[in-house]
């Protein structure tokens, strides 16, 4: 690229202006990549569960309602069902931490059969089963909070007026793209509290029921059959794949996707204006120079190319730092620990980083378009007269 020297020197001509432009592009793309990753990861995490052939039965009323625990054994008896466990949200505080990590009351015998990708040493699993107040926690959480087997985790109820005094009996290891910060304890232990201190109101229920099927082919029929069986009962159910459930769960917190898209569009537009303005300023300062280039034989097309290459290079530099930078930075530093259970893991997927880079190239091109056209339109004569 024989014009590269000239284009590059032009970028360095007003270092502060170029720096500021690159900085605003990279700052915005950094944020935009992180926002876009939320949606991308949610989908990736959701579709990542496909291999495990799991169904989730919840109340057709939504997540606020519950499923009677008698359904558990009924479901276990259905063909195609391998294992099933209740899954009940406790939502306890740890000290003053309101949402320290997700805690679920489960069936200790089957939870790690339903979640076969979470691995606990057999002796720890046995210890967990034997201790009604025992719990198993994720490796990430154990590492971050320095928990070891035998440690106490005193949880204060926020939904329920009773506390849980849990003891760590095991630590599970999980694949990278799964939740390594959950805390599983006995559903029975929760039930005990409900019967004792909650006037039995909420007792006898599971939040949802997690079902592991023996193959994926049975899943569509199975979920239909479960729901059909209870459609006329007092507590109709809604059964769906874990993937669909995860997506629904994400949407529970508002339509993130649309908000993020909107933010993305606004960011892109304002970056086009910011970069375009910087380019227009740069070109105004170079009117005579452009005229000289034209006089010595640079065609309008080549002049346009020079301007577009410059604006594209500036924006792409910002995109590289912002989008690809966000990926590398968040690969090195896991921010999901600040999201207490709502976000099992966080990273910027390459797809998002590369789209961010591509978007920045588009921003550079579009922002250079008007300055490039006016540079091409500039009359040589008038451009040269400016000096004399």
């Amino acid at each position, binding site marked *: 690229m024989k014009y590269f020297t000239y284009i590059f020197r032009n970028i360095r*001509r007003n270092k502060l202006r170029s720096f500021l432009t690159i900085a605003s592009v990279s700052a915005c793309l950094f944020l935009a990549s992180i926002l876009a990753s939320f949606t991308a990861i949610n989908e990736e995490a959701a579709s990542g569960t496909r291999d495990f052939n799991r169904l989730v039965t919840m109340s057709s009323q939504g997540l606020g309602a519950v499923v009677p625990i008698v359904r558990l054994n009924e479901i276990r008896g259905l063909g195609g069902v391998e294992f099933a466990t209740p899954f009940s949200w406790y939502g306890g505080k740890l000290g003053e931490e309101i949402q320290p990590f997700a805690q679920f009351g489960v069936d200790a015998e089957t939870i790690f059969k339903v979640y076969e990708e979470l691995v606990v040493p057999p002796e720890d699993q046995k210890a967990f089963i034997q201790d009604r107040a025992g719990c198993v926690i994720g490796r990430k959480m154990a590492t971050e909070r320095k928990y070891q087997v035998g440690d106490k985790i005193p949880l204060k109820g926020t939904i329920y007026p009773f506390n849980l005094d849990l003891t760590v009996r095991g630590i599970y290891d999980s694949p990278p793209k799964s939740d390594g910060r959950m805390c599983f304890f006995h559903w029975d232990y929760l039930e005990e509290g409900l019967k004792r201190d909650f006037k039995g109101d909420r007792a006898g229920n599971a939040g949802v029921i997690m079902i592991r099927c023996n193959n994926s082919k049975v899943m569509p029929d199975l979920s239909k059959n479960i729901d059909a069986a209870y459609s006329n009962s007092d507590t109709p159910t809604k059964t769906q794949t874990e993937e669909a459930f995860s997506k629904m769960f994400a949407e529970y917190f508002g339509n993130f996707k649309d908000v993020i898209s909107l933010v993305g569009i606004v960011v892109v537009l304002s970056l086009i204006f910011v970069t375009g303005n910087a380019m227009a300023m740069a070109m105004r300062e170079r009117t005579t120079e452009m005229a*000289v280039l034209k*006089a*010595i*034989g640079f065609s*309008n097309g080549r002049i346009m190319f020079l301007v577009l290459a410059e604006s594209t290079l500036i924006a792409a530099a910002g995109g590289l730092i912002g989008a690809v930078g966000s990926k590398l930075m968040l690969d090195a530093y896991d921010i999901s620990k600040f999201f207490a259970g709502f976000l099992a893991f966080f990273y910027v997927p390459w797809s998002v980083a590369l789209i961010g880079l591509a978007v920045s190239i588009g921003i550079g091109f579009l922002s250079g378009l008007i300055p490039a056209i006016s540079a091409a339109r500039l009359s040589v004569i008038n451009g040269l007269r400016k*000096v004399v």
Partner: protein
Amino acid sequence: MADGLAIELRAVTKQYKRDEFTVPVLESLDLVVREGEFLALMGPSGSGKTTLLNLIAGLDYASSGEVIVHGQDLGRLSEGQITRWRANNVGFIFQLYNLIPVLTAFENVELPLLLTNLNRKRRRENVMTALRAVGLSEREDHYPRQLSGGQEQRVAIARAIVTDPYLLVADEPTGDLDRKSAEEILNLLEQLNSEFDKTIIMVTHDPIAAQKAHRLLHLDKGQLIGDVVQVPRLGAAS
């Protein structure tokens, strides 16, 4: 050209349109310049010297009449064609040098060659030849701000000759220089004319500068007056 004519202007008029007014600048102007001629153009400010130069150099079109340079009727060329024609045929020297401040002397001189198919090595050879011709080969890595006015103008001349153009146009090339630097520039132009047979048209306000040319024309009120043939100087082609 076989007929030895470098430039031929026939009944050339040029007017600028300013809003509703048309400003007549050149009126029915005829001019013939021989190949290898060094022509000086004088005249009061606003008389149309730059305008005339622009027409000859293919930077602008005549309003009517014919401008024929190196056998080419410039009026028949489209904007794209005339741009290419300029790149191949004309070298420009401006009063304020108009070097690109962010490029070194070498890179400035190389600019017109970027438009050719020459490879990097050939470009380097040609640039160094041009810089040597203006006596600045050891300044190739200097930026314009590191050079004196006279040196900047010499780099500009190197840029003008690096493609070996047929015609050199210079609009007040010494207008911004002290007497000594001006003298160097004029000698350089004279040398390019005599040794390399470049046809040169130079606009100047300086009678001493005009002395270097073979012929001096005055432009006044849109007309060329006085066709003073200079006594050929020693060693100069006539």
